[in-house]
């Protein structure tokens, strides 16, 4: 039974960990908004989550089906998913590719989804407790 409960939480736990890791990446993008030659980095969340759930790890590669998709491998991985460089819409003269509006929007979005995951886990925990206590 404890294994089942573990399985119950696994999805949201993995999602929460990935959200936290992505939050850190976005925070470092915002922190380095004025650093010359800094390249903004991000992960493809859905494929990273899929990979982490299947335990696939570093072999994941993305199919770029649109010009706006993230490209280029930064050589690092977050929970097995490759960290990629963002393609800037308006590159700046100092080689920095951080676009504050994009980063802030993504940061707020990621924070909200993190909170959602926290809520899901809390609700699940409450369900399990209700089942146990009757």
């Amino acid at each position, binding site marked *: 039974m404890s294994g089942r409960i573990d399985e119950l939480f696994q999805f949201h736990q993995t999602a*929460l960990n990935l959200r936290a890791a992505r939050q850190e990446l976005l925070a470092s993008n915002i922190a380095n908004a004025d650093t010359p030659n800094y390249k903004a980095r991000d992960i493809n969340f859905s494929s990273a989550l899929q990979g982490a759930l299947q335990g696939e790890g570093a072999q994941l590669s993305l199919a770029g089906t649109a010009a706006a998709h993230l490209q280029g491998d930064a050589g690092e991985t977050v929970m097995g998913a490759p960290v990629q460089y963002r393609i800037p819409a308006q590159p700046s003269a100092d080689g920095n590719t951080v676009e504050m509006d994009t980063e802030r929007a993504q940061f707020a979005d990621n924070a909200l989804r993190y909170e959602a995951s926290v809520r899901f886990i809390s609700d699940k925990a409450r369900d399990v407790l209700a089942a146990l206590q009757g």
Partner: protein
Amino acid sequence: MSLFNIFNVAGSAMAAQSQRLNVVASNLANAESTTGPDGQPYKAKQVIFETTPVPGQIGQGVKVSAVVEDASPMRVLYDPAHPMANEQGYVTMPNVNPVEEMVNMISASRSYQNNVDVLNTSKSLLLKTLTIGQ
């Protein structure tokens, strides 16, 4: 724990931006300093930002790698009555450009605010995480 690491990342950016603000303050304060301890007019200073990795983490912080002297030419003013004027009546003034410094100041304070926001968001996410299961 990625979210705790955001405190390091955003904190390093805030430290770097406040140093930049400090340099701007020094430049603006000395915009008319025709002589210093070495007898030379004040030279404008600029900070150089550099990305600094956080050990074992994916996020990258910021640090001020160097404070360099502005290479732009010194301002020369014709004022024979000035005590620092040379034989031709010219005074060498600091190469501080007040307009550039004001822009620099606004940019630094905005970046600082961005990082404060990042820090606050991460803090509230962490606090929400602590309420899981309650």
